[in-house]
């Protein structure tokens, strides 16, 4: 079965000043799949992820060469970056709910896009929380501060906030690295239910996590993609010696 290609990068290089953080990345990411990026710290996987919704724009001194095609349009070309970010949402490593109520956290994105209707917002907030498996826990305190939630709840709130924008792609940058195992399990369950509707790209430090949830896995090392393949192949029969060394824990 040939899946539609959502992201396609061609010879992507990225520099922080003089330092080359990404070296000629070529990768096709399929629609409604879970793609995992693994690799040791500083290998460029988060940097690459942040290219996909142009979050690197916020950092001074970043230069990008090559193409990142999103639905066949170059996102560094003549596109509206705000529109891109509404279509490509992001969940961060550290849960970062805004210091406002649970309700307002979810309504924030849609309101920024001009949604004002109260009933429409109410429905959207509920739907998003239900999808993020958080509704039952917070339905009685929607107007309380989001900062009063536990870390795992905060992260699911951030996922709900992203879902509320109804994006096509959700980028997740080590979304469970700050959470305990139980909260992590909940988020992983959530991801497998979300992949029906969204394309998910996740950076993770946990090989087990990549193995459990992803369809495809890319192994990054020193700014290069060493290997990109179906997850079972990466974990059982990698082509490259370095991939094997990494997943068997010989370095990293």
């Amino acid at each position: 079965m040939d899946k539609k290609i959502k992201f396609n990068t061609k010879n992507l290089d990225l520099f922080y000043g003089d330092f080359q953080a990404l070296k000629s990345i070529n990768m096709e990411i399929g629609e409604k799949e879970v793609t995992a990026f693994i690799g040791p710290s500083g290998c460029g996987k988060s940097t690459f992820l942040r290219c996909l919704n142009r979050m690197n724009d916020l950092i001074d001194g970043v230069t990008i060469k090559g193409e990142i095609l999103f639905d066949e349009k170059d996102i560094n070309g003549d596109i509206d970056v705000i529109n891109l970010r509404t279509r490509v949402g992001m969940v961060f490593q550290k849960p970062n709910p805004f210091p406002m109520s649970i309700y307002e956290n979810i309504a924030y994105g849609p309101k920024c896009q001009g949604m004002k209707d109260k009933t429409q917002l109410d429905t959207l907030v509920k739907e998003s929380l239900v999808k993020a498996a958080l509704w039952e826990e917070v339905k009685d305190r929607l107007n309380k501060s989001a900062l009063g939630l536990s870390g795992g709840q905060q992260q699911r709130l951030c996922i709900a906030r992203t879902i509320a924008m109804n994006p096509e792609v959700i980028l997740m940058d080590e979304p469970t690295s700050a959470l305990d195992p139980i909260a992590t399990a909940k988020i992983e369950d959530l991801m497998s239910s979300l992949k029906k509707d969204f394309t998910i790209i996740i950076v993770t430090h946990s090989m087990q996590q990549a193995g459990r949830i992803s369809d495809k896995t890319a192994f990054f090392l020193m700014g290069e993609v060493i290997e990109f393949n179906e997850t079972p192949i990466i974990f059982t029969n990698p082509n490259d010696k370095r991939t094997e060394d990494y997943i068997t824990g010989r370095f990293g």
Partner: protein
Amino acid sequence: MEAIKRKKRKEKIVEIIFLICASVAVLSVLAITFFVFYNGLAPFVTNSYPLWNFLSGVEWRPDSNLYGIFYMIVGSVFATFGAILIGVPIAILTAVFISEMASSRIGKAIRFAVELLAGIPSVLYGIFGLGIIVPYVLKISPFAQGESLLATIFVLAIMILPTVVSIAETSIAAVPKEYREGSYALGASKVQTIFRVVLPAGRSGIMTGVILGIGRAIGETMAVMLVCGNPIAGIPTSIFSQIRPLTTNIALEMGYASGVHQQLLYSTGVILFIFIMIINFTVNKLVKQKVGS
């Protein structure tokens, strides 16, 4: 053994020197407070002037033994309020511009200018107000003088800028970058991010800046004295009315006053002091809240 003892004694002496230095500020506050209150409360304790007449009077005529400061309180409050109304939005937007928008070179240049503004002696603000602002006010004023509430407000609005800008800038910079990233990742624009996330998150710090600005405005004397008109009577009825703030009342007459007149100038100081204390307590409370949250 002897050496260790000597060393210990030396340590102790140094410690005491530090303590003495630290006490200077505390003792000064206590001394000033005592001095102002002791003299300022005397006329009411000895009944040489009724407190109510002092607080509610709208005329200050030492020759006729009339010492009412109500119109000064009103003038001080109006001038401060007006300065905050104009100065605070400018200051906050300046802080936002420096920390969120300007390139680092332009940001530095603006910050330098703001810091310089803080260092200008207040009498120079007064001269500037008298030479530039007062004539302009005169042009649009229905009265025959430019010294007015309006001129005072303008001068004070400029004077509070450095205080509010620098504190607002610090608290904006302290807003975690994760909030900004979260906002941008949801497709918010820069302006939306600033007004809906960054400023609300930095609210308590910004409020602290505003309150310190209020303190600065209400306590300012020299610059205000040159542009406010200092009338001897009358609650201000328009922004073109002259005012006589509490501070200038003291500064104008303390040099030659004596007896009850002099004591009532101290009493004016007591009122000013109470205002400042209220402001400081509010700041402390806000700062504590910030730490708590």
